[in-house]
């Protein structure tokens, strides 16, 4: 059985390493500030005991006044998982750091989020639309999207 690590416990461990990096933590997830995302992700990937070598999925949710990015991390070695999140309060030009340098599996998923949600990933090698065509107006998964019909 994959053990879901508690976000609260993780927050306690992170506090010493990365002060003031956590927005919120709960039993289910850990929400960090986006400027710390890359470093914290690296910490979880490289620290023995965590070894989150597998990035299961990335997605984004539009909550109106902010976007939430959800990363499902898994360690195949220890069979435990963690839900890592970050938030982006910018709406016109939202940018978060890309995790392609850590997990290449993020490549298409980040492009998908850019395409459908309009969040740019800083450091992604090929940041362009993946499903829709060049010249498509808007980002359909945003709650305020309308295709004019």
């Amino acid at each position, binding site marked *: 059985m994959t053990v879901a690590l508690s976000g609260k416990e993780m927050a306690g461990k992170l506090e010493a390493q990365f002060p003031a990096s956590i927005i919120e933590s709960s039993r289910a997830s850990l929400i960090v500030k986006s400027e710390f995302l890359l470093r914290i992700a690296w910490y979880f990937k490289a620290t023995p005991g965590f070894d989150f070598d597998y990035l299961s999925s990335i997605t984004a949710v539009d909550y109106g006044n902010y976007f939430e990015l959800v990363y499902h991390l898994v360690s*195949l070695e220890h069979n435990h998982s963690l839900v890592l999140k970050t938030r982006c309060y910018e709406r016109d030009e939202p940018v978060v750091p890309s995790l392609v340098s850590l997990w290449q599996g993020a490549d298409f998923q980040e492009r998908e989020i850019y395409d459908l949600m309009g969040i740019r990933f800083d450091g992604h090698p090929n940041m362009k639309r993946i499903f829709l065509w060049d010249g498509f107006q808007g980002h359909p998964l945003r709650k305020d999207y309308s295709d004019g019909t």
Partner: protein
Amino acid sequence: MALKTEHFVLNLGPLHPSTHGVFRLRATLDGEVIVDIEPVLGYLHRGIEKLAEGCTYKQNIPFTDRLDYLASMSNNLPYVMAVEKLAEITVPERAEYLRVIMVELQRIVSHLIAVGTFVQDLGAMGTPLLYMFREREKILDLFEMVCGQRLTYNYMRFGGVSHDIPDEFLPALAKFVDRMPGFIDEYDQLLAENEILLARTKGVGILPKDLAINISASGPVLRASGVKWDIRKADPYSVYDRFEFDIPTGSISDAYDRYRVRIEEMRQCVRILRQAMEQLPKGKVLTEVPLKLRPPAGEVYAHIEAPKGELGFYLVSDNSDKPYRFHIRAPALINLTALRQMLIGWKLADAIIVFGSIDICLGEVDR
């Protein structure tokens, strides 16, 4: 005198007989050697995630059917599991067993098509694929018995399955389960030691273990790279912890290993089916749930080992009758990430084989 050469771009697809749908590759070639490739996706992007936000939870089950249309049953399951987790619905035991039976039959169907089209791309025109369609039709008949459809079943519901199985189902299933190992042996005789198959797949499209993990590959692609990771064992859902089965893995991580893993997985499916038939309890198949289900606000992620890999549904509920966010973790899309790394430096002819060995379904890749 040195000849002046330059790279050129070759377009493959989106309508191409060996792209298994509407997949497109933009390949940069140096003569016949691939220098770089770019998969161009989205030719079947139907916007399911957006449409699902406008439909009630129950109305969304048919959308899941049309994701990986070769494995509709497997797509139903993680979605209903996610909603059940969110709304805390219990599932009767008989329904759990029926789900396992359907999903394992579906895995056989999906692997049959994967192997059949893979060898067809290799040049085995017709024969193996027609053999595999013969068995596929038998399974589709079984599905038709339980839900009346051949391809898009819409069989699973929150709290169980839509119908109990008819009386003639179990004898037909028993007959199929008895004969299937013989059919798999037949494929093996035709293919496993076929010289052309060996020459074209052995050592081709190698995906090393650490790269496979880094690239978030899942399913047979990950296991063929030697990683013993199967969600049915690692994070058992439904009643999978009650069955005995093995996880076949590869050692060389090439296209041939991926083919072997799929063939071996079919044998394991038969094993699971036998045990599920023996243990199948009597009782209800559906818990009553309100027609307009309003799960409590919150979020949930449920995943299963679908034929193509880890299929997950991430749902966010705001306590209304429609999901606030409906995200699908599509295994085929993420497995495709590996394609570029596997192909650079190989000949164009190998591209088709490596691509076929990943086994994608565009409905799921593009959604």
